[in-house]
């Protein structure tokens, strides 16, 4: 994958970081049927999203097929300063994964 599937925007204000991510992913539940063939579309969804800052996990989300397509995720954590790097990664149920690093403003 040439282009990252994760877009990150993060801002720090008084030690409190606000992180926003937009992930491109089909997030198939496994319950939908293909309209033409009538067969089930196999499940394909993100199971785990992790955000690391300074070697520590600051956010860990366990997801399932109930999350929408191209999910948007926003969270906050303390103890960061502007210019720090954060790393966001996901793993889906087929074993695929992606990781992106971004600098906080």
């Amino acid at each position, binding site marked *: 994958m040439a282009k990252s599937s994760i*877009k990150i*925007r993060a801002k720090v204000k008084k030690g409190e970081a606000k992180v926003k991510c*937009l992930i*491109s992913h089909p997030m198939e539940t496994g319950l939908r049927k293909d309209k033409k063939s009538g067969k089930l579309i196999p499940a394909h969804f993100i199971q785990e999203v992790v955000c690391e800052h300074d070697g520590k996990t600051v956010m860990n989300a366990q997801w399932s097929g109930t999350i929408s*397509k*191209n999910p*948007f995720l926003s969270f906050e954590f303390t103890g960061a300063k502007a210019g720090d790097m954060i790393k966001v990664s996901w793993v889906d149920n087929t074993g695929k994964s992606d990781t992106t690093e971004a600098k906080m403003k």
Partner: protein
Amino acid sequence: MIKIATALSVMLIAATPFAAQATPDDDLKAFRSYFTKKFPEVPVNDFINGVYSIDAASREQWEAFEEFPSYEISIDNGEEKFNKKFANGKSYADCFPNYKKGIKQNYPYFDTDKGEVVTLEGAINKCRTDNGEEALKWSKGEITEIGAYLASLSRGQKTNVKVPNDAKAIAAYNRGKKHFYAKRGQLNMSCADCHYYYSGSKIRADILSPALGHTTGFPVYRNKWAGMGTLHRRYGGCNKQVRAKPFKSQSDEYKALEYFHTYMSNGLEINGPSQRK
């Protein structure tokens, strides 16, 4: 010459029961001043933000969406697909030589040679079929991604739709105008009932957006659709909501409506793609 002139005037009278003599320019002025009088606190160019220009509470939510909007993925995908070469070695850029400067503001335009309204989606698919590619589906999917990319390059440009002095062009304009003001569906409502006369009022829990500036933000990412859609997809939804049978996307009827509807927003800035609830 006299024949054409009489044909024209007959057509005008037949097509516009509302104001037989009104020119598109008069319509535009009346349309504009209606909304500026109705919402005097809204700056004219803010109407491009639809319902969010008139309601502070929903504007707050919308601004949160727009901080990191869902259509960004579509713009990226659109750029990639736009730059991909066709099988014959040409690309979209050959059909839209000025795309970098922004072209969305000039659509829809009236092609006087062919005697029809040309929408941006129509031009995209014509570009594909001319180059031996299959046409895309009209109302969602790839066509909205390419539309989103082209709209993003046109941001800040002012809508500039012209109605040439051509009998067919004026007929198309009047057809769109008629669609806008005519009652339809089991609920017997017109576009104008909601988005002109009752704009700003509540319809159940939602607030009706003013028709002025409707067209600038398309294609839109609509939360209800969880995806992108064209203006014609939205028209279909509107028609269904008044329990009328929707027309097909890119049918002459909707093309005419888009022509009239966009003309009314002349001078307003393009801000597409945008996010709507």
